[in-house]
């Protein structure tokens, strides 16, 4: 990410001293930004589709690990020694005192040894990283089979108003082919390991075999390797399970139901929760509330959209890290009393999504509620690049903290 223009310490100090606001511009919330284009399948292609056959792609995903901190690299120990000595020599030669040169013969072997040790430690760490990542991928690399992803997508299609999956003997209007193309681990030298799941989806007209819409979906998360590997790889197992749900949700929304409207969607205070991000709830079954306001200016859509205000319902989800722990669909009010006690003493991500009827009687959904971006954070839309959508991880949703006592 490009840094902000004024990284100058003097300016920063001066600004802080005087309360000057120039350095404190928060990034705009992604939901209020003007969009360049809509990423969902165009409405003219959606028209006429009601019965959908969800088909898993044949080939199982490719699994691969790479990265600058993955696996031993040739001559690392010798290179470490060489770098250490070269660094020392350049420091000594820039020193005019001559003292360093006198000490140099004694220091050289020690430094070379230290360099070799550092190189060896680095090589060891890389080998450990490689062994851990390989073990994780061997165990969980196939934990997200296409068949399972397709089943989740089909379930969500059935939940979407106006659509259903094809039953036996009923011809489908369209065939949705979904599959994981790649599960990738990148072991970085910043001690973060980034796992990414890539999914491809294609909507095909069954009669002609013509491709109507194709889109890639990317779900990415970076954590220290030890956190992925903790509890026999529970971190990765949960991530892949969360990825299945989040990606399936985005595939269905992007192909069939999502309408990207500029909006404000934010938590509202209740007696149990003050609505602030990371605020503690007063009970394990708190009442959560939110408000949704559209802003207009949706120039990325072919025509202005009129929402039937009386038709708005909400989907609510609560995540414990990547694990979906609570889910409600079609809530009629912008508030909900949690029906099952949440786990005590946890920080949970929560989000809602509006669902509404638009002009010609079509039911559409909006985007999931995101927390405001932090200063210096790039606002995240689900735009990844041409033909690709980024699936937002629960880290970008507002969080709440449950009380530690069960009362």
């Amino acid at each position, binding site marked *: 990410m490009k840094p902000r*223009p*004024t990284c100058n310490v003097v300016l920063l100090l001066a600004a802080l001293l005087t309360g000057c606001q120039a350095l404190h511009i928060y990034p705009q*919330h992604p939901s209020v930004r003007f969009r360049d284009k809509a990423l969902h399948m165009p409405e003219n292609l959606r028209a006429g589709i009601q019965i959908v056959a969800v088909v898993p792609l044949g080939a199982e995903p490719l699994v691969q690990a790479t990265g600058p901190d993955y696996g031993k690299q040739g001559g690392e120990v010798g290179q470490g020694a060489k770098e250490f000595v070269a660094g020392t020599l350049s420091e000594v030669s820039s020193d005019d005192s001559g003292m360093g040169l006198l000490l140099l013969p004694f220091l050289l072997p020690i430094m070379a040894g230290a360099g070799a040790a550092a190189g060896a430690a680095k090589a060891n760490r890389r080998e450990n990283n490689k062994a851990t990542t390989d073990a994780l991928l061997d165990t969980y690399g196939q934990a997200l089979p296409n068949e399972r992803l397709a089943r989740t997508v089909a379930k969500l299609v059935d939940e979407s108003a106006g659509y259903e999956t094809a039953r036996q003997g009923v011809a489908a209007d369209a065939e949705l082919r979904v599959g994981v193309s790649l599960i990738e681990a990148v072991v970085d030298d910043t001690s973060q390991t980034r796992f990414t799941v890539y999914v491809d989806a294609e909507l095909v007209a069954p009669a002609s075999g013509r491709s109507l819409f194709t889109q890639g979906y990317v779900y990415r998360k970076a954590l220290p390797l030890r956190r992925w590997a903790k509890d026999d790889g529970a971190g990765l197992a949960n991530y892949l399970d969360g990825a299945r749900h989040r990606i399936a949700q985005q595939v269905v929304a992007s192909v069939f139901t999502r309408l990207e409207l500029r909006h404000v969607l934010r938590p509202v205070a209740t007696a149990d929760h003050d609505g602030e991000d990371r605020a503690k709830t007063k009970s394990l079954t708190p009442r959560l509330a939110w408000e949704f306001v559209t802003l207009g200016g949706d120039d990325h859509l072919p025509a202005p959209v009129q929402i039937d205000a009386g038709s708005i319902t909400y989907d609510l989800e609560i995540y414990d890290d990547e694990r979906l722990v609570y889910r409600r669909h079609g809530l009629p009010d912008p508030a909900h009393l949690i029906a099952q006690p949440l786990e005590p003493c946890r920080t949970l991500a929560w989000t809602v999504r509006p669902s509404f009827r638009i002009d010609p009687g079509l039911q559409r959904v909006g985007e999931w509620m995101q927390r405001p971006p932090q200063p210096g954070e790039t606002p995240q839309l689900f735009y990844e690049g041409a033909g690709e959508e980024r699936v937002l991880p629960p880290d970008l949703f507002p969080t709440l903290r449950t009380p530690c006592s069960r009362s």
Partner: protein
Amino acid sequence: MRTARAVSLIVASLLGVGCAGHVAVVDHYQVSAEALRAYQQIKIAPLYSQDSPFYENLGPVSGLSCDNNGKTRADERHAIEQLKLKALQLGGDAISPPGCGPSKGVDWANNCWTSILCEAVALKKR
């Protein structure tokens, strides 16, 4: 003593450069739902309305759209939206036709790589 004076001069001049021309940005997420609905009704009045007896002139407003991380493009529509939000805060129901222009290079005053600044007059129909 001389060093201290030099430092204070530098700080003062940096502040002058850094904060002069700074335009406050209204965050939609800090605005009430009622105001969010109301600002969408703010109209752009015809040319010269600020001098018309049919409008009350509530004063000038500035709206800024800022690219402060190299990824979020400055957008004139956003700057005009800022004008409307500020006009609403002044009790207005219209703005004069806005004049907008991009920053010349880095906009240091607002900490933006590039920015678009729009200016108008907040108006209220009599």
